[in-house]
């Protein structure tokens, strides 16, 4: 019988393998896991996979794939082999994220108040005022506790040497935390013995921590505040997560049509009449959240909500206008932002980024289109992107024209490096699939970071795309104390 990991290929060496060193020896924290997996037969694995699949299906853990067929729901693939982070590595990530999120929050407070960083010309004013996420409606408004980014999920990758790098900051409505919670539950059920061999830090209290964070930002004097989750509705790809989190926190799941603003206060319609709402965990984007102020054609929002918020009669998480700080151009300024507000060197590094708006960078980008990844600043989900090594000369020429015509809108990065982790690419074969990590950071009175986060994995041979809509899956992620 062939044993698992016997034929596992940990190369090519330009990528960092999470489990094996360059020489092919297992990293110590994976020792017990490998030992156990080597004892499993394929039947053992199949039986466990079956338990998990039934479990996921019964709970309706799905996501919606857009553009395939109207409303196709799929089970988010779960890979059986957990990713392990030793405590001493996690501590660096934790400190780095704390530093980064603190600085980004100060940055948001500043640009929505005195704009000192713009006046000091550390960040060019036209980048902020020219960003479509800059909310003029929100300038001068004081969010509760001075916090803008209550829930964030930065995407973290590892370069060829295993250094942790921040790929992007998601400061608007990051999703995926429900998969993190479900993955842990599934893994504990399928592999109780292995799980028991490690001291894995718990993550199950995330919904309670989130609820506490939301309660902390309630308007002053509102004891036992009424917290609701605002979802765009069942057609949203993350609707499962919205309903899951609402249930876990024991709060109401609402849509825009369930809420109404009267005399600058927000109310929920109930069978007993209108009931005051104090805090809204909103999973609706800025532009759709209030038709009076933003897109007038939005049916997902609540008319008058922004004015109630400005007045302090209701709190929103996250605040309005946070997208201005996770723009791909602003991203390249985050190290400067950290030094400017905190006077510290960044603990976590950025991926090197060239800005087309900077003449010297522009020259470099145009000369190296074949090896770089070019991204549009304000787009996400792979739209407006050129992957140099996979592009034709015609595509490169077309991009060169677009970049020259609108340099503010483009950045370039080296072709991405994602670490690899043994994962099942089919029922029986283990392959070094590329992974990233999205830790979840909560910011209320204090900053709380759930140990680990969601590890996303590209379950296709050689693929660097971890998005769920393009064949990605996820893994349980363990932070362990040795």
């Amino acid at each position, binding site marked *: 019988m062939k044993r698992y990991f016997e034929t596992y290929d940990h190369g090519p060496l330009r990528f960092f393998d999470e489990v094996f060193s360059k020489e092919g020896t297992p990293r110590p924290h994976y020792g017990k896991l490998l030992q156990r997996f080597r004892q499993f037969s394929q039947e053992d694995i199949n039986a466990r996979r079956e338990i998990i699949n039934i479990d996921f299906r019964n709970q309706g853990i799905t996501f919606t794939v857009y553009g395939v067929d109207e409303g196709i729901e799929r089970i988010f693939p779960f890979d059986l082999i957990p990713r392990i982070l030793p405590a001493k590595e996690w501590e660096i990530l934790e400190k780095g994220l704390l530093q980064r999120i603190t600085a980004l929050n100060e940055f948001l407070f500043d640009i929505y108040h005195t*704009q000192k960083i*713009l*006046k000091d010309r550390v960040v060019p*004013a*036209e980048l902020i*005022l*020219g960003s479509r996420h800059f909310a*003029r*409606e929100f*300038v*001068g408004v004081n969010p509760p506790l001075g916090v803008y980014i209550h829930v964030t999920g930065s995407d973290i990758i590892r370069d060829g040497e295993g250094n942790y790098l921040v790929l992007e900051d998601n400061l608007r409505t990051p999703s995926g935390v429900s998969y993190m919670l479900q993955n842990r539950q599934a893994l504990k059920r399928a592999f109780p013995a292995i799980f028991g061999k490690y001291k894995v830090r718990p993550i199950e209290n995330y919904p309670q921590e989130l609820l506490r964070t939301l309660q902390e930002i309630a308007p002053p004097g509102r004891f036992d505040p009424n917290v609701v989750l605002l979802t765009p509705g069942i057609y949203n790809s993350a609707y499962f997560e919205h309903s899951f989190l609402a249930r876990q926190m024991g709060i109401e799941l609402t849509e825009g049509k369930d809420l*109404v*603003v*009267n*005399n*600058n206060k927000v109310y929920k319609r109930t069978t007993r009449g209108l009931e005051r709402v104090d805090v809204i965990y909103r999973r609706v984007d800025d532009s759709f959240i209030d*038709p*009076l*102020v933003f897109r*007038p054609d939005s049916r997902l929002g609540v*008319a*008058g909500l922004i*004015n109630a918020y*400005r*007045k302090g009669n209701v709190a929103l998480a996250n605040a309005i206008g946070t997208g201005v700080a996770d723009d791909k151009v602003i991203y390249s300024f985050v190290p400067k932002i950290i030094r400017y507000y905190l006077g510290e060197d960044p603990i976590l590094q950025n991926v090197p980024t060239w800005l087309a708006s900077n003449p010297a960078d522009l020259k470099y980008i145009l000369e190296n289109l074949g090896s770089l990844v070019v991204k549009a600043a304000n787009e996400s989900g792979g739209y407006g992107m050129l992957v140099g090594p996979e592009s034709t000369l015609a595509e490169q020429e077309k991009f060169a024209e677009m970049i020259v015509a609108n340099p503010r809108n483009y950045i370039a990065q080296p072709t991405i490096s994602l670490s690899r982790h043994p994962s099942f690419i089919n029922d029986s074969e283990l392959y070094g699939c590329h992974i990233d990590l999205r830790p979840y950071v909560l910011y209320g009175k204090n900053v709380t970071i759930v140990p680990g986060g969601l590890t996303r994995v590209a379950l296709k041979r050689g693929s660097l795309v971890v998005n769920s809509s393009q064949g990605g899956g996820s893994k349980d992620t363990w932070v362990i104390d040795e």
Partner: protein
Amino acid sequence: MILKVEHTTIFEYDSPIYETATEVRLHPDTSLSSPQRCASFKLQVEPAATIFDYTDFYGNVVNHFNILQSHKKVKILATSVVDTGNGQSVAGDDEEILLTDFTGESRYVHFDQGIREFTSMFTTLEDKCQLAEHICREINGTFVYEPGITDVHSTSAVVMALGRGVCQDFAHVMLAACRYLAIPARYVSGYLYGGGSTPDGRDEASHAWCEVYCGKEKGWIGMDPTHKTLFADERYIKIGSGRDYSDVPPVRGTYKGNAQEKLGVSVRVSAME
């Protein structure tokens, strides 16, 4: 001049609507840098509603209210008394970075081919304020005032191509031309006493023009491409300013229900001395 403004807006619906939410930008400019003084402002709403206010990013006072119960008519009456002072030059801002908003494109102000051709005749002039005056005179001389062929959502590019429009349209074209030539310029919403807002003197009172930034010393100079006098003077009452019309619509709102809306506006500006 001391002027009194009575501005009535009536929305009528052919079947009941409910949950109206409305924002009103009708409060005369109160900024300290303006020569204009607002002596009083009163806003009345029917059906009765509690009225709230805030000051927006551009310093404009915004009033807002909501009406929950069903209704078929909303009446908004704004009455203000304003001392316009002796002109409309407004002191400059201390922070040059705030000018960024008034140097680029915006929702209704576009740098299209038409504007690039139009501005090519001006590029030799040095003094920005003079240049803006030339632009203002050129628009006033060559564009035809014609109501009804554009609407509130027409962009500068559309107006440029038509060569005609109303005061709002001319203001947008002037903003596009100025900004394309790197002269900071902003849209002003307000009223005009006496001469009327149309060039032939019909009194429509509600008016729109531009303010051009002429350096820290001179500040913002009001320029009006709709009228031959070209410069704003004591007959001009400013409500507020922004990048274009979309930043200072007099009334905007949402409601629930299925109904046809009919809008009626009447504005009266009278002298008090």
